C-alpha cells in the first residue's frame, strides 16, 4: 500500500506531569502504516518537552496563546503554513479549541483541514451546562452550580454541603471539604482560568474514562474505556488499564449518536458502588492517555486525521481488554543552542 504524504500540525507538546495529548497523538500518527508523515509541533512555551524529544516533531514553532487574540494566532499559523504547507491541524487543548473552531473558515482558506467539534456541540457539553446536557440526553450527571463571583460561594453551602468538587472552566478539579477550602480554590482557579468556576456535587465511586471519536453524523468510529490505576496529585492518569464494560460503551455510543459528536472526546465518569455511571465531564478533544487505545487496537488519532482528509473510515469493532500503560519521567539532555533557537527565533 502506498503511504499518503501528509503534514500534520499538532499542539499539546507539554509532556509534563500534567501532560498534553500532543506527544501521544504524534506517536499514534507515526505508528500509522497509511501515512508518510511530517509532524509540525506547535508549542506555547519554550520548555515543552515535546520540542526536544527525539522522533516526535520534525519541526517546532512557538505560537501565541489564544488569549493574545485570534488574529495573532492566525497570523502565526499563516506564517508557519507558508513554510510547511500544513494539511491537517490537530489542536489538543480545551482552551485553544474555541479559537480554532471559530477560525475553521480561515484555516480552510489556507488549505488546512481540521476535524473539530461543532460550536453548538462544544458549548452544550461545557462543565457549567452539564446538568442540562444530562437531562437532554438522558445521562445521569451530578448537580452543579456556576460561581460567577465570590458571593456565589454561599449558594454552594445552601445547596450541597461538603464535600464538593470545584473545577476550572477548562482545567483543574479539587475535592473540597469546607467553605475555607472552597474559597481558597475558587480564588486560585478563577485567577488561573477565569470565571465561572464550577462546583459539582461529589459522587463517591471509581473514576473511569472513555476515549472516543465521533464522525459528526452520530456514528462512533472508535471508543476504548479505561480505569486509572495510578493517579497523580493533579488527578492525571500515570497508569491505566483498558476495561471490558458494556455499560460504558453503550453510554458512549448513545451520547455520540444523540449529540452527533464530531472529533475526539474523553468522557470522565464515576462508577458508584451500585455500578451506576455518572458523567462528570466531557473533554472535547483526545486525552493524553490516547496511546493506550492505539496499543489496544484503535488508532484514534490516525482515524481522526483520515476523516479530516475526507477519507472514509470504518468504525473500529474491537480492542484489547487488560492493556495497560504506565508513564515514566526521563531526563532529556538538551544543548543550549536548541533552547536558544526556540527562545529567540520561535522555531526549532
Amino acid at each position, binding site marked *: 500500500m502506498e503511504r499518503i504524504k501528509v503534514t500534520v500540525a499538532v499542539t499539546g507538546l507539554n509532556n509534563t506531569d500534567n501532560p498534553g495529548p500532543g506527544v501521544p497523538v504524534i506517536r499514534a500518527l507515526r505508528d500509522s502504516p497509511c501515512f508518510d508523515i511530517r509532524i509540525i509541533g506547535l508549542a506555547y512555551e519554550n520548555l515543552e518537552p515535546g520540542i526536544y524529544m527525539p522522533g516526535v516533531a520534525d519541526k517546532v514553532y512557538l505560537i501565541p496563546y489564544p488569549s493574545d487574540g485570534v488574529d495573532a494566532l492566525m497570523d502565526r499559523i499563516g506564517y508557519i503554513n507558508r513554510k510547511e504547507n500544513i494539511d491537517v491541524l490537530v489542536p489538543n487543548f480545551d482552551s485553544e479549541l474555541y479559537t480554532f473552531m471559530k477560525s475553521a473558515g480561515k484555516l480552510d482558506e489556507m488549505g488546512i483541514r481540521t476535524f473539530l467539534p461543532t460550536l453548538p456541540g462544544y458549548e452544550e457539553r461545557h462543565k457549567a451546562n452539564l446538568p442540562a446536557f444530562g437531562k437532554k440526553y438522558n445521562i445521569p450527571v451530578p448537580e452543579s452550580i456556576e460561581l460567577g463571583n465570590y458571593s456565589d460561594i454561599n449558594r454552594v453551602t445552601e445547596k450541597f454541603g461538603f464535600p464538593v468538587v470545584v473545577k476550572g472552566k477548562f482545567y483543574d478539579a479539587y475535592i473540597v471539604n469546607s467553605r475555607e477550602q472552597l474559597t481558597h480554590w475558587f480564588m486560585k482557579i478563577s485567577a488561573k482560568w477565569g470565571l465561572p468556576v464550577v462546583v459539582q456535587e461529589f459522587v463517591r465511586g471509581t473514576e473511569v474514562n472513555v476515549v472516543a471519536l465521533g464522525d459528526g453524523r452520530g456514528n462512533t468510529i472508535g471508543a476504548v474505556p479505561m*480505569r486509572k*490505576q495510578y493517579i497523580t496529585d493533579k488527578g492525571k492518569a500515570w497508569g491505566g488499564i483498558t*476495561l*471490558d464494560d458494556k455499560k460504558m460503551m453503550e453510554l458512549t455510543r448513545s451520547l455520540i449518536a444523540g449529540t452527533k459528536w464530531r472529533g475526539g472526546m474523553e468522557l470522565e465518569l464515576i462508577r458508584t458502588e451500585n455500578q451506576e455511571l455518572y458523567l462528570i465531564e466531557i473533554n472535547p478533544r483526545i486525552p493524553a492517555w490516547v496511546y493506550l487505545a492505539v496499543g489496544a487496537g484503535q488508532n484514534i488519532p490516525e482515524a481522526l486525521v483520515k476523516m479530516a482528509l475526507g477519507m472514509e473510515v470504518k468504525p473500529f469493532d474491537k480492542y484489547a*481488554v487488560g492493556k495497560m500503560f504506565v508513564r515514566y519521567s526521563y531526563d532529556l539532555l538538551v544543548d543550549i543552542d536548541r533552547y536558544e533557537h526556540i527562545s529567540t527565533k520561535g522555531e526549532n
Partner: protein
Amino acid sequence: MRLKKNIAVSETGFVFDPNSGDSYSLNDIGLEIVELLKQGRSDSSVLTALNSRYDIDRASLEKYYHDFVSMLKYYRLTEERPDAGADSGHNPGIQPQ
C-alpha cells in the same frame, strides 16, 4: 453462584477483573478453589474435592470456603447461575443467600 465468565485467572494465581480493572493475587488453595469454580463446579462439588485432598473436618472447611466465596462476591467476581438453586438441596449450609 459461579465465577464470572470474563474473569481472567493465570496459573500463578493472578486474577484480573476486566470490568473493574482490579486485579488480585490468590494463594495456592485460593487458586485451586477458583479453578474448580471456573470449571462450573457447584459449591458441594468443590467442597467434596477439597475434603478429599486436605486433612480438615467438613465443618471447618465449609466455614473457610464460605468466607472465601463471600470475598469473591464482595469483589464482584461472581454471578448467580442461571439455574441457581438447582443443587441447593445438597448442602444448604453453603449456598449463596
